[in-house]
């Protein structure tokens, strides 16, 4: 497996009036070419911030304070996206690394037609010769994301489209330049289940056709089980466990991962009682010392309160940051 993105020791802070929010505190992981990598966690755990930090899409009051994001280009070069001049980064963002965001209504500009917005990405990155070519290509792209009657829809404004259709246009925009990495941040959260299934299927088939790498950010364990190859579980700005999808679902190690999986009802199994994780997600201005999960952990030990657990490998490709698995 060839790595395509290596995130190393990433730290992102938000400087607010209430104090410094340490949203990402030392996140490291590698995404390999051609895989679907899922980053899961609850609201505020830093999964979206991590995905945005990859191409420096962090706005004030946020700041990337430390770390590196190594991108392996097609011709084998390694570039640190966090150190790249803005102009060069722009040539990569939207072309080689593209995003799909959660809310299609917010992602599309209400003043422009769907065709214009799909074409714009290609015109800006000069992958088409003219606007005319761009619009022509846009029709093809809208057809490939399964929008019925694309010749007509290319002239439609966002308000004339349903949520599912808008998300297809957004996907079309992201895919217009055939990106090598597609970062999908909760791409189906705003959609109904039947539409969600259609969109997930679409992302999978487009990924296969273009041989792209997908990084999926979601809180939905069901969606992860459906399409991910490897999974990283985040909690309070840190990754607590990484493994392939079977390791995470069949053999979860971290108490948080276990809790998360038990809190999601599986409709195929008769569940007598859902287990819940006591307490709530901590405030990241003053995160708990030691392991950030310790105040909610049923297996808490003395060491957890004072010292941060390192990432250790429990089986090939399966790592966990928990003192239960670390001999000191």
């Amino acid at each position: 497996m060839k790595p395509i993105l290596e995130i190393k020791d990433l730290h992102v802070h938000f400087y607010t009036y209430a104090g410094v929010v340490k949203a990402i505190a030392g996140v490291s992981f590698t995404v390999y070419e051609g895989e679907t990598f899922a980053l899961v966690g609850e609201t505020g755990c830093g999964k979206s911030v991590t995905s945005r930090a990859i191409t420096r899409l962090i706005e004030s009051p946020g700041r990337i304070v430390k770390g590196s994001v190594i991108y392996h280009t097609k011709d084998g070069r390694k570039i640190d996206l966090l150190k790249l001049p803005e102009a060069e980064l722009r040539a990569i963002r939207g072309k080689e690394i593209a995003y799909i965001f959660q809310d299609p209504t917010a992602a599309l500009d209400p003043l422009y037609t769907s065709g214009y917005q799909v074409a714009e990405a290609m015109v800006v990155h000069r992958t088409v010769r003219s606007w005319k070519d761009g619009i022509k290509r846009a029709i093809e792209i809208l057809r490939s994301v399964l929008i019925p009657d694309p010749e007509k829809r290319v002239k439609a404004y966002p308000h004339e489209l349903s949520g599912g259709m808008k998300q297809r246009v957004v996907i079309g925009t992201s895919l217009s330049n055939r990106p090598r990495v597609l970062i999908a941040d909760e791409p189906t959260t705003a959609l109904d289940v039947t539409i969600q299934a259609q969109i997930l299927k679409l992302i999978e088939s487009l990924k296969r056709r273009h041989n792209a790498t997908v990084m999926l950010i979601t809180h939905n364990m069901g969606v992860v089980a459906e399409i991910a190859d490897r999974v990283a579980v985040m909690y309070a700005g840190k990754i607590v466990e990484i493994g392939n999808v079977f390791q995470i679902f069949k053999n979860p190690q971290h108490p948080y991962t276990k809790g998360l999986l038990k809190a999601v009802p599986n409709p195929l199994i008769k569940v007598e009682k859902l287990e819940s994780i006591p307490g709530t997600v901590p405030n990241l201005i003053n995160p708990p010392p030691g392991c950030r999960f310790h105040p909610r952990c049923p297996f808490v030990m003395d060491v957890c309160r004072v010292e941060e657990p390192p990432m250790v490998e429990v089986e090939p490709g399966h790592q966990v940051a928990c003192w239960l698995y670390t001999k000191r």
Partner: protein
Amino acid sequence: MTQQPIIKVQNLKKYFPVKGIFFTKGYVKAVDDVSFEIMRGETFGLVGESGCGKTTVARTILRLIKATSGRVFFEGKDVFKLKGDELLWFRRKAQIMFQDPYSSLNPRMTVFEIIMEPVRFHKIEVGDPEDFVVGLLETVGMNRDHLYRFPHEFSGGQRQRIALARILAMKPEFIVLDEPTSALDVSVHAQILNMLRDLQRERGFTYLFISHDLAVVKYMSHRIAVMYLGKIVEIAPSDKLFEEPLHPYTQALLAALPIPDPEYTRKKPKIEIRGEPPSPINPPPGCRFHPRCPHAMKICKEKEPPLTQVEPGRFVACWLYTGRKG
């Protein structure tokens, strides 16, 4: 759970006019001829995708919005005809928990005031108000320290607990739970769901549980009704619905459900449902699901299938099954 209905809904309709410049252009048939009963002590689940009318059903039952036609009975009394003291009694006994705990609590009131406001309005005798409120807070897993704090100081899960404490203050019999955990995080939602189940067991509450999340509805409900575009297409005991869904829409909905089990999802056959729900302003004639249905027949485009009982306790509105009965 007894077999006595506490809520009876008969031919409920709610049409919202779509206003043109001079006259009404048409109607959104948000709820179109819906009938069902909820038994005392049970949880009746209502599922469907956004815009199918499930929240409108709940709000019309509670008389929060006026029904276009139809009748609702609560403990044998016609809800739409209640007046004076009887209406106040209904308002106390039938409660609702809303989806968004950020807009259902007044940001300018303390927790104490929030919970006491309806108590004072209904002139309920509670003894020492502070002890009364603390008692309720303890029931929902909070304590005396929270008494004089404001909603913004709490997380979503805690706010939902406060909303529940306010409901409990009314000593209700029937509670509508309208997506009570949709705004909450996974690790917190199980806490709220379990608390609701425990309270039901202790106090015999009847719930109408509304959600778009089938997995959660299954966990909570004894019986489930599936809605599509203003109509109930299927009613079944919750285990049966998942074991053997009858209506093609229910089947599609279950097939689309992401299952948190990677081994299963990689093996399961994918039934894909085409298209999107049509506009409820001009719903398709006949069965409203027919443009998306893989089994659509000629009759489906012409005549609307009635909700018929196909087995004891199982109702389905689909022409594939109406022959089965007889």
